């Protein structure tokens, strides 16, 4: 568990913002910083690689290359020197989802700076999630909302791409605009869902629910035990034998 003492482990040197600390070699950067004595406030969120709070950049001595990672997911390596970038100023355009359209005009109106992309690919190289950031920016420039949404789906919005973009684009906010346009306007609506909402509003299930709510525990257990289980390998067309409560 976090915070436990680690006595017999091999220690390696890392440089947190240039300052040397010796930390157990098996730790992630996040746990290594805690081991070194930091109490994390910024730069720590889900500790599970999905919230984007702990974007980190690092280098090794003698190498020109800038490496990136999420501090909670990246294991320390000897002599790495690192800093977290827990926050980076970003543009966020305000839009009314009911009024905008899934096309290039929307993208250009809200984020005109995408057109400044130099295709240097630094964004892609800065992505700790291995997303083809430059390719989705290119899709945004073409107004290809579908491609923009699909390519950016795994984005954790850590902002490392934005911190390094020479064209000053805020890629991850362009991406969420694209995904929302895609989800709302391009993918067909779920008709079965709209139908169900309609049935509920009409009160179709009201009586059966009220009745089961008044049922005592023993009778409930019986109903529960006897409910028909959809087989795991069943296809979309499966229907239960008992249709009384549908």
């Amino acid at each position, binding site marked *: 568990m*976090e*915070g436990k003492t680690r006595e017999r482990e091999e220690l390696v040197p890392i440089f947190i913002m240039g300052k040397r600390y010796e930390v157990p070699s098996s*730790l*992630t950067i996040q*746990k290594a910083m*805690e*081991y*070194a*004595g930091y*109490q*994390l*406030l910024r730069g*720590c*969120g*889900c*500790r599970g*690689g*999905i*919230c984007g*709070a702990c974007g980190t950049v690092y280098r090794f001595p003698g190498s020109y290359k800038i490496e990136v990672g999420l501090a909670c*997911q990246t*294991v320390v390596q000897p002599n790495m020197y690192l800093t977290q970038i827990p926050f980076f100023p970003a543009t*966020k355009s305000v*839009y009314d*989802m009911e009024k905008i359209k899934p096309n290039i005009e929307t993208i250009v109106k809200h984020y005109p700076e995408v057109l400044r992309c130099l295709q240097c690919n630094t964004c892609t190289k800065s992505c700790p999630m291995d997303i083809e950031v430059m390719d989705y920016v290119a899709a945004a420039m073409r107004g290809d909302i579908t491609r923009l949404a699909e390519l950016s*789906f*795994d984005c954790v919005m850590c902002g490392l791409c934005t911190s390094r973009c020479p064209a000053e684009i805020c890629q991850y906010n362009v991406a969420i*605009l694209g*995904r*929302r346009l*895609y*989800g*709302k306007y391009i993918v*067909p609506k*779920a008709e*079965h*869902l709209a*139908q*169900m*909402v309609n*049935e*509920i509003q009409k009160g179709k299930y009201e009586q059966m*629910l009220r009745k089961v*709510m008044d049922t005592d525990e023993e009778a*409930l*257990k019986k*109903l*529960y*035990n006897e*409910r*028909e289980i*959809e087989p*795991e*390998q*069943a296809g*979309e067309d*499966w*229907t239960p034998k008992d249709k009384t*409560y*549908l």
Partner: protein
Amino acid sequence: MPYTRELKELIKKVEATRLMRVEKKRRGEEFPLLSLKEREERLRKYHPDFIEGARKEIRVGVSKGYAISPEIVNLLEARSRVNPDLVDLTRIAYETDVLIIGGGGAGTAAALTAQENGARVLIATKLRHGDANTMMAEGGIQAASKGGKDSPYYHYLDVLGGGHFKNPPELVYTLVTEAPKVLAWLENFGCMFTKSPEGRLMTLHGGGTCRKRMHYAADITGAEIMRTLRDEARNRAEHIKVLEFSPAVELILNEHGCCAGAVLYNLETEEYFIVKAKAVVMATGGSGRLHIQGFMTTNHYGATGDGLVLGYRVGVKLCFLHAVQYHPTGVVFPEQAEGLLITEKFRGAGANVLNIDGEQFVNEREPRDVESSCFIRECTKIGKGIPTPTGRVGIWLDSPMIDILMGEGAVKREFPGKHILFKRYGIDISKEPMLVYPTLHYQNGGLEYNSKCETSVPGFFSSGEVSGGVHGENRLMGNSLLDVCVFGRIAGISASEYVKGKFKDGKLTLDHVRRYHKELEQAGIVTDRVAPMLLPDYSNPPVRERQLTAHYLGSIR
């Protein structure tokens, strides 16, 4: 860290039975489900809630005598972080209609509906907006959306069965009838649920479901919902203000006994601020970072049960906190990923769980508490767990079966988040199984509330994981994302309605805190503990010894 040579040897036993198990799966032959009686027996013998010392009675407050986890009792039997006599309640830093404490799924959903209903909203959140367990929920969101095979009636039965038939019916009714509406609401915001080309929502089973009604957005359903709701709130920034790194440390009442604001703590400047509000929504989430019984956790850094403490001090009862949820499949190897959630969706997609001999010992779709108990039984009494190099023990989750069942590339496509995570450690989960063990996952109980999110204190509403009841003694997969959306939306509406109607202005007070302190003294509880905890303590003891001039208040330096 890739699997060690020893573990690679053991994986061969899994591979040896894999094709035979895939064939069984294809024929629809499942490991038999336990009867309700057998479930009960497994729980009593192996679930962590039932071990000696798992529960302790609370000695103060409205739920005095209620026995729950000692880790939570310790927080309840603690003093305020701030001496009420030092707080000047006339110096109001922010005034708003609705104050929402917590910026996760429930808080953000509440903000949206309150704003739509005409309220000015302030969200106060401990870390960043969206830093919450909602972000980490992977598997999906339940709703009976397919009328040809499912209905809210079956969803209702499943929720009750999962919760040991103890759930208050009205809460469950609200959950299951609002569920399809919530999905449509999210769809309209542009949430990218996984769909067929015709727009049909894809659905899977979860533990304890009788119909496949788990809707998902690949394996990052919670993140997709959270980032969409957050983006929507940011589009309404004019009326929804957000204060980040500003946790609430105390609720404020007024002379009429109504909730009227909160004391916030700016974690960065270390100042305390007063927020005056006409209504308050508590949406602080759960408490996995208390590491109950020393268990590792899947929870967010900020999940320290703050809302329980604040709500309890103003007199809201606690319920269902005696049951703690351990998710069956948390990572035990590699150690760097320890505690991390492996979504139930892996089992829903066909992966078996196996012991050291590569044998099945439990159906993959038992409710979470039962599944976890069976894992613990296999590793303890039966002794067929898989030992890890760090001295822990685990169970195999045979993810490569999914590629065989659904076609090559299925694991990578359906579980992109986990695939890349393990790849970083040199493990390809489409070729090698994962090692898992139960991990502290969910706070089943919490503040007592009703289906309108009202609590016993006027002007004080509760929603999401901080509240207790809807899941009874055990939540099913896919019902927490649903819970935060359903009850978040309701809390926002109820709070904004209260602002328009019953709200009554009055002088602000922290007398309830003084009374609580007095009650602690009267119960003979002399302690330097403070609560809420705000952040877990992961400090390094040797470092701490050298911090000669540092001062810690609770876990915070």
